[in-house]
């Protein structure tokens, strides 16, 4: 293992994606394999060429397995190599990408595979709802009967109050996700919805209804990262990760000065833009954290794609569609593609890599050169922003 010098670039050289969905045909390790195999084939290497793994699984409870990282590392044939398991709630996968990048930058490894996986349907929706609710402060939030979507509903109420964001604008996010989900063979949902259907669906925690909420899914994704020298040997089309930003926030949302913005998103984005030497105007395509419709609207604002408060208008004008100012979540997003927690951030890296390589099929954003991923854990207690270039 040679030490990579500090100026050396780090790139994505292989990607793989399992079918997201209600996957009762496979357990978590088999889903991980379904993502790892194509990633190795894509890079044209074997596990013998990989120095270490970083494995992202958010919940042992969902997998019904202690140390799921060890289970996956062994199953995919990584043998005695070093392994990290990371956890950052819904941003676990991106924490994995950041960890792998850091390992390579530190010279501890030349090639690292990041595997994100989660099985959320295996334990049933009530179990998933219960554990998601416990992601809030279990002393001062959970005892009031708060659910995970309710945190975002509190933000939505406030966003509607402060900026006049409308029910229709929220639903437009969902309509867009479903439209692009039909163009992604790995997406959980493959069906379009009308604006009327989205606006009138079952209330979950008002103002949010069923179509404002992401799915409970099983899935896995894998990305192989390498230092500059190895990346150039492995592939002619490495996608360089040139900017990384991360930030966090208070555990209790009542302690935050604003409910209409995620401070962690803003800080992480600022750091990533600065490191990559780009501005929001330079981004050609992005995957942002749309666990709920309001989250995608806030992401437009927090990442600087539009002014604060203009997120609703941004979707209404079609600016986040292909052909708009910056196409966002054209892989279907968390809403339609699915949100298997540990897999999500890695899946975002896979999508942006595909887009920058020009391999995104019907949903290809033409001439995409610079991409961004934005992955939020919980309600902003974790946030990771990465910037990618051809």
């Amino acid at each position, binding site marked *: 293992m040679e030490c990579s010098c500090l100026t050396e670039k780090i790139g994505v050289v292989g990607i793989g994606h399992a079918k997201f969905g209600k996957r009762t045909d496979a357990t978590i390790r088999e889903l991980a394999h379904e993502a790892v195999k194509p990633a190795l084939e894509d890079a044209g290497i074997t596990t013998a060429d990989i120095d270490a793994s970083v494995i992202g699984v958010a919940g042992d409870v969902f997998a019904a397995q202690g140390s799921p990282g060890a289970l996956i590392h062994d199953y995919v044939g990584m043998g005695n190599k070093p392994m990290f398991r990371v956890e950052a709630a819904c941003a676990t996968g991106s924490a994995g990408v950041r960890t792998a990048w850091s390992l390579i930058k530190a010279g501890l490894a030349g090639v690292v595979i990041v595997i994100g996986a989660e099985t959320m349907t295996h334990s049933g929706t009530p179990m998933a709802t219960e554990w998601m609710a416990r992601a809030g402060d279990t002393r001062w939030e959970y*005892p009031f*009967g708060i659910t995970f979507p309710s945190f975002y509903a509190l933000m939505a109420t406030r966003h509607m109050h402060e900026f006049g964001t409308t029910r229709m604008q929220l639903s437009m996010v969902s309509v867009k996700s479903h439209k692009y989900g039909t163009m992604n063979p790995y997406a959980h949902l493959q069906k379009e919805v009308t604006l009327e259907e989205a606006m009138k669906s079952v209330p979950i925690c008002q103002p949010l209804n069923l179509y404002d909420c992401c799915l409970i899914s099983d899935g896995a994704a894998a990305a192989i990262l390498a230092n500059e020298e190895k990346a150039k040997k492995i592939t002619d089309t490495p996608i360089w990760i040139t900017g990384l930003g991360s930030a966090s926030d208070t555990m209790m949302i009542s302690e935050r000065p604003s409910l209409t913005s995620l401070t962690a998103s803003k800080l992480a984005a600022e750091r990533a833009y600065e490191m990559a030497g780009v501005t929001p105007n330079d981004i050609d395509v992005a995957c942002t954290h749309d666990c709920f419709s309001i989250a995608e609207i806030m992401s437009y604002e927090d990442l600087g794609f539009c002014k604060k408060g203009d997120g609703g208008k941004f979707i209404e004008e079609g600016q986040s569609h292909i052909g708009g100012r910056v196409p966002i979540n054209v892989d279907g997003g968390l809403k339609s593609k699915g949100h298997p927690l540990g897999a999500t951030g890695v899946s975002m890296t896979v999508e942006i890599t595909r887009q920058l390589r020009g391999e995104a099929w019907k949903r290809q954003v033409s001439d995409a050169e610079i991409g961004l991923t934005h992955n939020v854990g919980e309600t902003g207690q974790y946030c990771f922003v990465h910037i990618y270039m051809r």
Partner: protein
Amino acid sequence: MKFGYTSWLPETDLMVKFTEALKEGKLIGTKCRKCGEKYLPPRVHCKCGSHEVEWYETPTRGKLFSYTLITFPPDSMARYAPYIVAIAELEDGSRLLAQITGVSPKTLHVGLPVQVVPHQISEDRIVYKFKPEQPIS
């Protein structure tokens, strides 16, 4: 006395003191003797690292800051559903999360004047909740 509709955490000294005051209709927070930071809900330790905190009585009046009507609760809360969880901004600017009762979803609005009051859920469980300052018909 346990705190909240549902919880499994131990009722520590902090919680015993807090719920005893709550039973008498008082809401108490903690204030750091070192940096002056105030916490509601209370904490044993300050974020500045100090463990020298003292109790203070907080305002119980405020205005609704945000809210959501929960119709899809976790199983442990199913018997209380539907219910409204809200955040209120108290007179000293601090914010608190709790359920609100005595309102219908249609009469709810940001800015509604509310009071924080104790609510005995069962013989062994207590919580605070918001209720409108003026009864709403």
